[in-house]
């Protein structure tokens, strides 16, 4: 209630407004972290080799590519949108940069060309994402439909520039980047940097705050004076940028650029976000949740393989987890509405 407080308001201790943990996602994130830990414990009991350094590292590496997609997807879903094109964007960026690198590379280690390839992949991803954003923001079209369209367009263009064939003949420095490391595999360093970048952007900046606000109430953001067209454009641009990085790293890791690379990643990227607590109605979610969600998916995949179960069980398990996550979210939403309704009537 909006009550006038009594002059000596003991009912409300002053420090009540400064509880120690403020994030509304703390408990949810601890809960899914618990699920991850339990899964790891179960698999290491069933298969003692599971917990080895090599095994953990291979889990992390197999997480990296779709986690990159999931980072951008998390931002987009929190804003109340969706981006179906990031899988094809991975393929397109990998392909554009792959074609350039294989065209210009002749001899030597080709460090310069590998760096140029990174720039081209990032630029391709960013531009493609910005294109999504411009169409969604300016024509005010449903992101689901727009990115369904560009999903086809990006893959089509990737096929066109490669005649539908995979591209290779890359500088050796690209391979060392894709499979070598410095303490950790390079792939993980890139992914960690991206996680930090997207995590800080979402949680600690105005841009991130408007992502949440836009997902919760478009009107509130418009009335707050935020340039929503520019914000939406950059938002989808950033989703594309992450896909561009994933495309480059995919090319480096698999030592080939394929026009159909990444097509299997879209669904698990969305699944990682949803399992991690991002809700499809928008306004809620965290990058940390998505990271844990992605790790859960990878642990299931690798765990099932180590235990000797057919890997399609992983698909089943991920599917079940997505539905359970959505179900829990819905239960919470209903009980919250009921609670607010009760208080309103008092």
């Amino acid at each position: 209630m909006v009550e006038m407080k009594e002059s000596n308001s003991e009912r409300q201790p002053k420090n009540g407004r400064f509880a120690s943990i403020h994030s509304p996602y703390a408990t949810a994130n601890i809960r899914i972290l618990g699920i991850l830990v339990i899964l790891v414990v179960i698999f290491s009991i069933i298969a003692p080799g599971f917990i080895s350094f090599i095994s953990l590292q291979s889990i992390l590496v197999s997480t990296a590519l779709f986690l990159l997609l999931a980072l951008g997807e998390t931002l987009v879903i929190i804003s109340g949108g969706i981006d179906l094109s990031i899988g094809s964007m991975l393929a397109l960026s990998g392909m554009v940069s792959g074609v350039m690198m294989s065209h210009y590379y002749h001899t030597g280690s080709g460090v310069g060309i590998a760096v140029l390839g990174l720039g081209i992949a990032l630029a391709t991803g960013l531009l493609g994402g910005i294109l999504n954003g411009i169409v969604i923001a300016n024509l005010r079209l449903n992101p689901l439909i727009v990115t369904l369209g560009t999903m086809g367009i990006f893959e089509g263009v990737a096929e066109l520039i490669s005649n539908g064939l995979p591209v290779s003949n890359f500088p050796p420095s690209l391979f060392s980047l894709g499979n070598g490391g410095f303490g950790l595999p390079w792939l993980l360093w890139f992914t960690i940097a991206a996680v930090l970048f997207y995590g800080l952007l979402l949680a600690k900046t105005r841009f991130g705050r408007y992502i949440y606000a836009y997902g919760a109430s478009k009107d509130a953001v418009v009335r707050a004076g935020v340039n929503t067209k520019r914000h939406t454009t950059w938002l989808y641009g950033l989703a594309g940028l992450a896909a561009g990085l994933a495309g480059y790293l995919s090319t480096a890791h698999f030592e080939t650029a394929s026009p159909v690379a990444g097509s299997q990643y879209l669904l698990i990227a969305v699944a990682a976000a949803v399992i991690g607590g991002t809700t499809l109605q928008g306004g809620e979610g965290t990058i940390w949740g998505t990271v844990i969600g992605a790790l859960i998916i990878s642990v299931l995949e690798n765990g099932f393989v180590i235990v000797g179960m057919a890997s399609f069980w992983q698909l089943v398990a991920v599917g079940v987890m997505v539905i359970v996550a959505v179900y829990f979210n819905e239960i919470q939403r209903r009980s919250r509405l009921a609670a607010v309704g009760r208080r309103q009537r008092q």
Partner: protein
Amino acid sequence: MDSGEVFRMESVTKSYGGIRALDNISVTFGEGLTAIIGDNGAGKSTFMKILSGVTIPDHGTFLLHGHPIHITSPVEARKLGIESLYQDLALADTLNVYANMFLGRELVKRIVGLPFLDERHMAQLASETLDQVRINIPSVHTMVRNLSGGQRQAVALARAIHFKASVLLLDEPTAALGPKETDSFNRIIMNLVDEGKTVIMVTHNIPQMMEMASRVVVMRAGTIVAEMSPKDTTQEEIMAFMVGSYKTVKSPQNFQKGGD
């Protein structure tokens, strides 16, 4: 309580397709509470949206303290000290209290040259404002969706107070509130009026406005059909102006075009 002109608009017109939502309106507001009363579709919300910069009129000029101003966007309006509360409680549900209060005007601190949100500072200032106006909200870290309608409206009000609005626009602010919450809300409004703010409130509660308002403006079909002090009128007369059974225009200062 009227003490001179604070805010004046002249010849304001707004059409939506064939509908004249506002038809050549001129009106002056002084300090104190002005109630805007009118039937559904009279153009009250359109009027308020124009004042708050959400809607751009087809024609019209505005003067704040005698100076011409251009309200081209909500940001512009707020820079001029004009703050709004909306009929539909436009808050971001999944953000907490202070994030909503500072939405669009976040405080940042520089860390290695980059602007990061200054959460602690915002939380502290929000908390102080809530204390100052004696609005009871459990924590500024509470997500707004866990608040009642009255608390949510109080958050929007606290935002206006924190940013030192001199003109407050309220479009049916208590429409979604229970009687107790409405009372508390109105008390806060009256405190603001006592502090010398200009408050413009759209409402259907005529009896309440007879007590609270220093002036009543009655709108019908996109025009102002009456402006008067509650002392000089009755609820029946206001009703009659609302539904159009009075054909004349009652206005102490201005002469408007009459009803249809």
